[in-house]
């Protein structure tokens, strides 16, 4: 039984259903990416796993317990999100000290070294940090807190590319040194391809796909050709018209022999990057942006 389990979990806010009958197992001691478009329900899902919000229906367990209002879950799970607030008159050093007091596995040396690396002066007050710096501070805390489960909700918001790259590297090194369950929600799947082991794709509160990252890289292929050539293809995930009777379809990987057969028929076959695949899988029926113009 994995530490985080959901069985038919639903979350409703008045008339709006944010999560709809979601069933999911997050593998233990793994790095799992939670991806999906804006409004997919990623933050709501993480809020429920963290025990911030109640489920409306279904069964959600973390360490075998319902997380809402559960002290042991709170003691063993840390949630990094952009709403993290620090006392007005605290300096970063005071914040670190507070975490040291509250979390037994807190790595003070790592926190200080990371802060120094990312240019955060521990004498500075968090309320004067820029958005990117505040995200960096939250991420540093998430790395140093060392709880058995750590959730990161869009941890790189506002960070520049260099900081994001270093954060991913630090996350990987920290995970390898202290294996634990890490769930990371992000829009930037292309930057996380080499980091994540598992991917959970949700859209409109429903599970679209849960798979290992290696499988996702070979999950689908893009095929280009005329409509006549493409008709008859099976397991089509996405269709787009390129004009002049040329079409681009994304299909589930049919196996190498079938791919060779398609190439022999004159079709152009190309791999689909996981980040693009996630967009194709969640964009069905919406059409292309070119349709707007």
């Amino acid at each position: 039984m994995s530490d985080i389990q959901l069985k038919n979990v639903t979350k409703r806010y008045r008339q709006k259903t944010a999560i709809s009958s979601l069933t999911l197992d997050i593998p233990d001691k793994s790095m799992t990416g939670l991806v999906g478009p804006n409004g997919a329900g990623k933050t709501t899902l993480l809020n429920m796993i963290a025990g911030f919000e109640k489920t409306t229906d279904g069964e959600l367990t973390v360490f075998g317990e319902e997380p809402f209002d559960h002290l042991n879950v709170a003691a063993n799970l840390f949630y990094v999100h952009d709403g993290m607030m620090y006392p007005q008159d605290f300096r970063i050093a005071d914040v670190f000290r507070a975490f040291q007091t509250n979390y037994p596995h807190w790595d003070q040396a790592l926190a200080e070294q990371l802060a120094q690396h990312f240019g955060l002066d521990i004498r500075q007050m968090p309320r004067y940090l820029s958005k990117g710096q505040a995200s960096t501070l939250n991420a540093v805390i998430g790395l140093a807190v060392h709880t058995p489960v750590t959730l990161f909700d869009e941890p790189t918001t506002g960070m520049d590319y260099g900081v994001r790259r270093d954060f991913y590297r630090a996350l990987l090194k920290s995970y390898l040194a202290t294996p634990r369950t890490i769930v990371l929600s992000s829009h930037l799947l292309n930057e996380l391809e080499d980091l994540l082991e598992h991917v959970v794709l949700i859209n409109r509160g429903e599970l679209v796909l849960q798979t290992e990252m290696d499988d996702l890289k070979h999950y689908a292929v893009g095929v280009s050709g005329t409509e006549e050539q493409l008709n008859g293809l099976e397991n089509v995930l996405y269709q787009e018209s390129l004009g002049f009777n040329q079409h681009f379809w994304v299909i589930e990987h049919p196996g190498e022999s079938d791919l060779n057969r398609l190439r022999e028929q004159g079709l152009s076959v190309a791999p689909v990057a996981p980040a693009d695949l996630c967009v194709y899988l969640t964009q069905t029926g919406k059409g292309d942006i070119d349709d707007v113009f």
Partner: protein
Amino acid sequence: MSFKEMSDKTAIVQQVRFKLAAFSLVFSTLAIIQLIAFLFSITGSQSSGGMSDVMVYQVTEINSNLIVIFTLLWALAIPFGMLSRDQRQMEFMFVTNRFVSHVSNLVFIVWMALVAAFFTVALTLTLHVTAYVVLDDVSVETILSLSDLAILWLFTGLWVLLIATTSYSLAVLMRLHTLLKVIGPAVVLGLLFYQTPVAPFIEWIVLETTIAWFALKVLLTVSVISLVVVFGIRQLEVRR
């Protein structure tokens, strides 16, 4: 990395320590409010005057009533801030649940009462000394004895405790549903100003003249309110 069992007691101690450090601005606010009250009081809280064929006179009484009143207004307002969205985000960053949150907040309110009472006594003494030194024609009517100061300390502390706990319970109720933010204050005002079963209850506390009985009644009321909040209201979510 091992799974850590956490007891309520440990979590409460950690949360109280954190709140004592994190909410230090609460006491800075008290100091500012009491200083304003002090400045108003130094020129006299109550004034009366008259004239006869031979003289015109004005009597100005200097007391710390205004300092106490301002302190109670502070006690009324602070619990609403303790339950603001930002404060809850901050609190739930550390190990807690609703039970631990309520208990640690109530412990903080007790600390508020002790500190506010101490500040009030200290400022009352300062007020009297300042008035005696600075103002002309001061006639000392009463000299505050140690027991007077102890009663003032206890009286202020108990009132702060009662008002802050009541205010905290109202703030919790108002966060249960948006409608309660409107209905809550309206019901409270209605209960206070119209003939309701609450009015005799308030009189039962307010009109008590014996300090020991007053203390007992306040502590009893605070205990009941606290128990209802701690064990009755545990469904508040931490919305983002």
